[in-house]
């Protein structure tokens, strides 16, 4: 028993690195915390950079017109426009040429350019062209430029009434931090457990060691009990540590209900993770290889199951594939807890998902037992 | 005879420790020259200086008549080295390892191929050419180590404790191999703290302790340097002090010790020492058990000159 834990202890430094990363990630994501949305319409705000070389009534009015629903920036490094666009610092760039207003007045085309790499901001083009129509119409009514612009702005106060049917807790990129706690668990649990339990299993089920312990006074039953106890201790310590840490930082993101459900969900996933860890421990030879396998398993599963990048953003094929991995079912539950708002309607679905995770863990443990048995016979 | 290696007045210090203290050695062509001394006596340091792997504080080393320097590549090319620890690459197979090290000396590909095959045959690793070192047993690994050192047919081969931690069978093979190389014309420098080995194969021996040269010569010369010619051990259950005293009085007897029923009698060289001792015991009606008589060993030489056992240091 002591020996079992001693092996586990050796893996502590590397495991603590994972804890460190985990904490750092959680810390980072508190910044991304989504605001609770109201049941009102909110226009999606675009960032528009404007280079106004004309500085005329018309250009200023257009800027004001766009500014009512978007974020306008006029101070920016013009050399870096490509970079800003490419990195999403700005969604849309408008360039007014000098003499734009005069050209417009004379009925010339051009004088204003737009630049964007987003295809779905084309509606802004429509909006701007519409603006020019309004101005032309007002001018046609005999107004001068200044009055025409004023009239257009006033006219634009007329807007459609919008009703919002559903309130999600902030959509995909705007989850509360508690969501990140639970979802990153899907990466960190397998990673840390493989790191600690892998070498432990490896050491214990190594043929020579196994033979020697079998020669000893301790019965096979007791040996196995010791291993099971060791695994249980390590796993529960890891899990408890993560949960306590999360509960301390993010308690306000949970209700009693969601917290209990989250616990159940993560406990089941803990079982799966243990299974994966002990299985890779007996299958993979050598610590180096185990390290590599760990990266591949934990990171691969996290990426494909929508831990790092929400499943909605993943290609359909990847999502289909992910259904064969336990983490995706775990993630489905986590999303349900935070996205859908009302848990009660979905309790059935939630427990079904829990069932799938449980089946995964049973299957993995069966494979583990078969592998161990084979090793013993061999 | 040509002098292959000449070491004059060599001094090497590591901070306060004087590892080699005014060493003078000269090794002749065709010799198997043994450097014998306990661990830490400075054997490896001498080898390192000789190969210019470390610089030294004083003295001069000449190899093949040329001053040895780190960049004296023509001289280095004529030397083969088998170091104490196995120096092979884990990522290369047996063949590739030998080819690699041979390649450091021999550029011509066809010739190298021949040499490598010869070396493999010499150490008897034909069946293992495709093996990686990790799959080889300790003895085989040593043989590979040797093959890597000798493949380029050097004129001077330095063996630095090649038999440490080697099973007796492999050890004999290695020793035979060294003698064979010598027969083929190579001059050998052989360092060891196993006096039996040195005694078995070396034509001339230098005994070293604490960086100083204690004695040089053939084993006969060395043994004749000391007084003890023969050591007789007799199991005597009970011995009176008169008998002990009487033994010491016998001619040729140098000293007598009696411990735990075993009398150790050291005699100078003489013909019938055992007979005289047993006759005396018989005459004094002292009963005795088994009798052992030994010619002096290099250990005795070392013991008498330095006052300590060579073997003690080994453990």
């Amino acid at each position, binding site marked *: 028993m002591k020996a079992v834990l001693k092996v586990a202890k050796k893996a502590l430094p590397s495991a603590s690195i994972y804890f460190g990363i985990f904490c750092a990630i959680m810390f980072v994501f508190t910044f991304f915390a989504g605001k609770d949305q109201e049941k009102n*319409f909110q226009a999606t705000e675009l960032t528009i950079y404007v280079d106004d070389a004309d500085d005329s009534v018309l250009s200023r009015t257009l800027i004001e017109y766009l500014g009512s629903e978007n974020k306008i920036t006029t101070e920016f490094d013009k050399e870096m426009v*490509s*970079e800003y666009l*490419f*990195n999403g610092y700005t969604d849309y760039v408008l360039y007014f040429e000098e003499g734009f207003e005069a050209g417009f007045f004379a009925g010339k085309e051009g*004088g*204003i350019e*737009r630049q*964007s*790499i987003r*295809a*779905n901001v*084309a*509606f802004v083009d*429509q*909006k701007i*062209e*519409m603006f020019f*129509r*309004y101005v*032309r*119409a007002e*001018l*046609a*009514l005999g107004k001068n430029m200044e009055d025409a612009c004023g009239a257009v702005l006033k*006219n634009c106060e*007329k*807007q*459609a009434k919008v*009703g*919002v*049917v*559903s309130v999600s807790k902030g959509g995909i990129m705007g989850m509360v931090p508690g969501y990140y706690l639970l979802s990153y668990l899907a990466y960190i649990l397998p990673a840390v457990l493989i790191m600690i339990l892998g070498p432990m299993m490896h050491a214990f089920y190594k043929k020579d060691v196994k033979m020697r312990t079998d020669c000893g006074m301790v019965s096979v039953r007791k040996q196995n009990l010791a291993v099971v106890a060791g695994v249980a201790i390590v796993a529960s310590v890891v899990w408890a540590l993560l949960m306590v840490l999360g509960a301390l930082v993010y308690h306000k993101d949970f209700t009693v209900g969601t917290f209990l459900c989250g616990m159940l969900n993560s406990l089941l996933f803990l079982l799966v993770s243990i299974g994966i860890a002990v299985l890779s421990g007996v299958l993979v030879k050598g610590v180096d*290889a185990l390290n*590599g396998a760990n990266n591949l398993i934990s*990171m691969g599963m996290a*990426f*494909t199951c929508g831990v*790092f*990048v929400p499943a909605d*953003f*993943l290609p359909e094929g*990847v999502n289909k594939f992910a259904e064969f991995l336990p983490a995706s079912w775990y993630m489905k539950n986590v999303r349900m807890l935070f996205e859908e708002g009302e848990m009660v309607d979905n309790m059935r679905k939630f427990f079904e998902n829990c069932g799938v995770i449980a089946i995964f863990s049973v299957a993995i443990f069966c494979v583990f037992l078969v592998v161990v048995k084979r090793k013993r016979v061999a | 005879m040509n002098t292959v290696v000449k070491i004059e007045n060599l001094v090497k210090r*590591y*901070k306060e420790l004087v590892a080699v203290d005014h060493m003078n050695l000269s090794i002749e062509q065709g010799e198997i020259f043994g450097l014998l001394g306990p661990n830490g006596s400075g054997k490896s*340091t001498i080898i390192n200086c000789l*190969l210019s*792997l470390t610089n030294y504080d004083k003295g001069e080393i000449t190899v093949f008549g040329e001053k040895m320097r780190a960049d004296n*590549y023509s*001289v*280095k*090319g004529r030397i083969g*080295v088998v*170091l104490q620890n196995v*120096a092979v690459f884990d*990522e*290369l197979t047996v063949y590739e390892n030998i*080819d690699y090290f041979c390649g*450091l000396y021999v550029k011509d590909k066809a010739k190298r191929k021949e040499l490598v095959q010869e070396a493999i045959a010499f150490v008897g690793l034909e069946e293992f050419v495709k093996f990686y070192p990790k799959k080889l047993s300790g003895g085989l690994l040593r043989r590979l180590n040797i093959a*890597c050192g000798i493949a380029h047919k050097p004129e001077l081969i330095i063996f630095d404790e090649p038999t440490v931690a080697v099973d007796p069978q492999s050890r004999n093979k290695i020793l035979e191999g060294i003698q064979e190389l010598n027969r083929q014309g190579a001059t050998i420098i052989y360092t060891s703290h196993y006096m039996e080995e040195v005694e078995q194969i070396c034509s001339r021996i230098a005994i070293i302790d604490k960086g100083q040269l204690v004695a040089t010569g053939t084993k006969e010369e060395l043994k004749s340097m000391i007084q003890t010619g023969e050591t007789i051990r007799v199991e005597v259950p009970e011995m009176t002090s008169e008998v002990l005293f009487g033994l010491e009085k016998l001619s040729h007897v140098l000293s007598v010790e009696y411990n735990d029923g075993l009398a150790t009698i050291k005699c100078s060289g003489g013909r019938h020492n055992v007979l005289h001792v047993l006759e005396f015991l018989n005459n004094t009606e002292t009963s005795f058990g088994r009798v052992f008589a030994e010619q002096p060993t290099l250990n005795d030489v070392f013991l008498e000159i330095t006052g300590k056992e060579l073997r003690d240091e080994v453990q």
Partner: protein
Amino acid sequence: MIYYMYRVKRLLRNKTLFFWTILFPLGLATLFKFAFSSITEKTWGFDTIPVAVTTESGVAAEAMFVEFLEGMENDGAAFFSVTETDKDNAEKLLSEKEVTAVIVLGEETEVLIYENGLNATVVKTVVDNYLQSRDIFMEAAMTGRLAEVTESFADETETLAVREFEGASKDPMIQYFQALVAMASLYGAMYGLLNTGEMNQNQTVVAARRLAAPMKKLPTVLADVAAACTIQYLQFLLILAYYLLVLKVDFGRVNGWLFVAGALYSLFGVLIGYFFGCVLQKEKGIADSVMTGCIMFSCFLGGLMVGNMRMILETSAPIVNRINPATLIAESMHALCVIGDMGWFARCMISIVLWCILLIIVSVVALGYHQRKIGREGKKA
């Protein structure tokens, strides 16, 4: 030559290094592809928006509005796919997320959306425009100047011109892949570090054994470096081929300069390994972990974990971008392949060359220092 060949062979057969320098970057690239390939498409790409319009009253204006919606185009694709239906069915469609929004036409035109988002904003903007135009026409009709207004609305003058984005790739996610190339290049340091382990006789027995051979030091060191660079460069080519041929990453313009740059990246990575190996000679383990830590941190700053890290730093601490190795590699690829700014690319390359020179100088000095020290203190037998 034999020396070089065997060094290549040996480095290639090192399984741990093989994993970290080749399999790991390829695996990570695959995961990146899974994770990031559709983000840009899904957040920036254009999709026809499904909307329902309630047309119960059957007024001509409603039909015109529907016609108007259906006529809207973006690069040849329809803006909206319109379902005309009654209000109950429209709401049902909305709650099933079959449509993004329901436009309830009538006295008080209303838009119903399922949830807030860009598409909802688009629908609302269009309906706003419809309402605003209607007001203008109504006002014109009242003042009896409908003809002028109609004429000005019919004016097809396209005032707004499109300035194309100059970059060769429009997918910012490739920055993750650029950072990954940077990581893979810097991992070449592992080969460099391995090589330094055999430069001094106090480090390994094999090193001592090698030094006993009649080989000049400089050529052997150069052969070592060349061998490591060769593998590193092959790995660079492999990753690039994997990106372009297997994963089909939109890497931008790939031209000959990228292959020249790849060689420099390889040398850079290997030299970093030499640097750590020479400076931290005492403990191989420490050198290893310190080096890996430094490389990972450099990659973090270069955007391996946060794709637009380079931009964040550019606006807050640009000096980091000028000197951080991973950034220099990623940025040079960005400048060359995405932006196509040769001046920028050259500046990055020069910085890398300067880095290499610096690394060589420090390594040589450190090596000399350690060798003198070994000479004085000797190795522990």
